């Protein structure tokens, strides 16, 4: 019997996550202790961390989609072979990228620091994924539930924005720093929005499976929220570049659009009023528990995102660790929690084994360790960032003095990072074992 390709993706996703956490912990200690493990310097450990965790997000989201479409949406994949080719391109490109980082060969830019030539297989793999996805669903279902829309949006806009992120290879962009930075962060903002579409689509899907309620994924309100989210993805990215000397209207459009997220915020609070008792009842279900955590993190991160989208606040927080809190809070708190819900759902579905009580205990303890550590991590970054922002504006201390001041917060941050690593290790380990057993068994 052929192994489900979705599971293969998820197995690799877990391995990437473990690697990403390892290099994240390493680089955070290099950040606070000068000279820590200088033989493997920060210039290498940082991109390794970033690329591996980004790989985790993509692999697990893509794996979920490949798994859910045939198994639960009841749409035969257009081509299983294409999906397998997709996997191999991802794996080989990934290994090449990691190798470049290990030997210190860069040439790209933030997030994609590898030599730009390696973006070509990434483009190709997304084309394959896109073909497979759209050929699978177009014309088969008339009224797409919202998650199919979201996945489609994520795939389409990832491709669009990834292309935009490589416009710098043309001198028209590269040789004009303001244009270059503006398009770069325009692309990155929307690019993260695109992978969020993949993730939120997954959240919708899992929620539907757990609750058995199919109306939510087709309701008017859900679609209204989806379009509002899409508008923000498309036009709300400029908080990254408020201080860049591009036209003022770029800043104002983003500011105005971002504030519409207040509507999303109110909807979350409104939902909680209704769903709280339900949540308490279902909290013992592992995937559900991760979704509840992600819900709380969405709330926290949205408040922060709203705050830093106000230019008068942004001027203090930009270029400080508050931005890191924003990025880590969303990628760990929101993306990782949703994707873990999805992975656990799939692992239990395919291996047909419920985790035994010891395993469940380990996962649940890991869940709490991760979330408490993440909260500590998040708060210490906010404090570090707020102090740095204030001191930079006051302009009395040197850079070294400022870093000295915030170093206690960063030490807490680095230890909290270890907490996240341990917590997630406890969560992943039983699931990874189940996957390996499945991949080795009944072949």
């Amino acid at each position, binding site marked *: 019997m052929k192994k489900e390709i979705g599971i293969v993706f998820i197995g690799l996703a877990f391995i990437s996550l473990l690697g990403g956490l390892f290099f994240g912990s390493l680089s955070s200690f290099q950040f606070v202790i000068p000279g820590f493990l200088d033989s493997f310097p920060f210039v290498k450990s940082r*991109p390794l961390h970033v690329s591996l965790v980004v790989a985790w997000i993509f692999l697990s989201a893509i794996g979920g989609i490949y798994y859910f479409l045939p198994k639960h949406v009841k749409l035969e994949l257009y081509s299983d072979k294409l999906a397998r080719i997709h996997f191999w391109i991802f794996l080989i490109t990934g290994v090449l990228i990691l190798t470049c980082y290990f030997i210190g060969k860069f040439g790209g830019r933030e997030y994609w620091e590898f030599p730009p030539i390696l973006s070509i297989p990434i483009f190709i793999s997304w084309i394959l994924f896109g073909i497979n996805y759209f050929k699978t669903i177009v014309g088969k279902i008339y009224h797409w539930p919202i998650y199919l829309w979201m996945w489609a949006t994520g795939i389409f806009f990832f491709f669009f924005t990834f292309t935009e992120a490589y416009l710098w290879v043309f001198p028209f962009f590269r040789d004009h720093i303001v244009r270059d930075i503006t398009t770069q962060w325009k692309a990155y903002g929307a690019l993260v929005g695109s992978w969020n579409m993949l993730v939120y689509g997954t959240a919708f899907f899992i929620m539907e499976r757990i609750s058995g309620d199919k109306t939510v994924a087709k309701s008017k309100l859900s679609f209204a929220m989806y379009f509002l989210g899409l508008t923000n993805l498309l036009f709300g990215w400029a908080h990254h570049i408020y201080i860049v000397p591009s036209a003022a209207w770029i800043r104002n459009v983003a500011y105005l659009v971002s504030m519409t997220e207040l509507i999303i915020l109110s909807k979350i609070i409104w939902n909680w009023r209704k769903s709280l008792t339900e949540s308490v009842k279902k909290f013992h279900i592992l995937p559900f528990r991760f979704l509840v955590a992600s819900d709380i993190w969405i709330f926290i991160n949205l408040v922060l995102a709203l705050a830093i989208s106000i230019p008068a606040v942004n001027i203090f927080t930009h270029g400080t660790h508050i931005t890191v809190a924003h990025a880590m809070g969303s990628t760990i708190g929101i993306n990782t929690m949703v994707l873990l819900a999805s992975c656990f759902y799939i692992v239990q579905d395919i291996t047909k084994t419920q985790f035994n009580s010891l395993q469940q205990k380990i996962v649940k303890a890991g869940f709490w360790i991760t979330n408490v550590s993440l909260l500590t991590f998040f708060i210490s970054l906010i404090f570090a960032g707020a102090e740095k922002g204030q001191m930079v504006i006051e302009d009395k201390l040197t850079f070294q003095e400022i870093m000295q001041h915030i170093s206690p917060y960063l030490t807490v941050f680095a230890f909290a990072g270890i907490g996240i690593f341990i917590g997630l290790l406890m969560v992943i380990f039983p699931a990874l074992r189940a996957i390996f057993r499945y991949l080795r068994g009944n072949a």
Partner: protein
Amino acid sequence: MSLKTKRLIFGILFSFFFLYTIAVDTIGTSKDDGERWLTEKAKKGKLVFQEYNCTACHQIYGLGGYMGPDLTNVISTPGKGPIYAKAFLQAGSQRMPNFQLSEEKMEELIEFLTYIDKTGISPVKKFKTNFDGTISEATK
């Protein structure tokens, strides 16, 4: 919501986005106060900056890693300047690696930093906040 409505909304949003993208890439970013300093060396310097992944530790306009300082205005900051910057490139520091750069690459980097310095200010320290949360342009 009918399928037609959904498609229509999506189509409108995407069309606007497409036009907006073109506007941002052209008129939105046409101003370049540093144009006169954009030498061939400065252009190469940008690629050197990428080749050594300086962005892992340094920011330009606040964007990048936070281990080192923002480099946007290192060339014009009182007490700093090209010679000061070059000293870091030559020797590194406790935290910054010595990249063993060739004289040529160092020059290219310095010209790149000089160009950036002329394009604007970061971090912005002088600004006016307005009642609606917007900020008014900074002056140097």
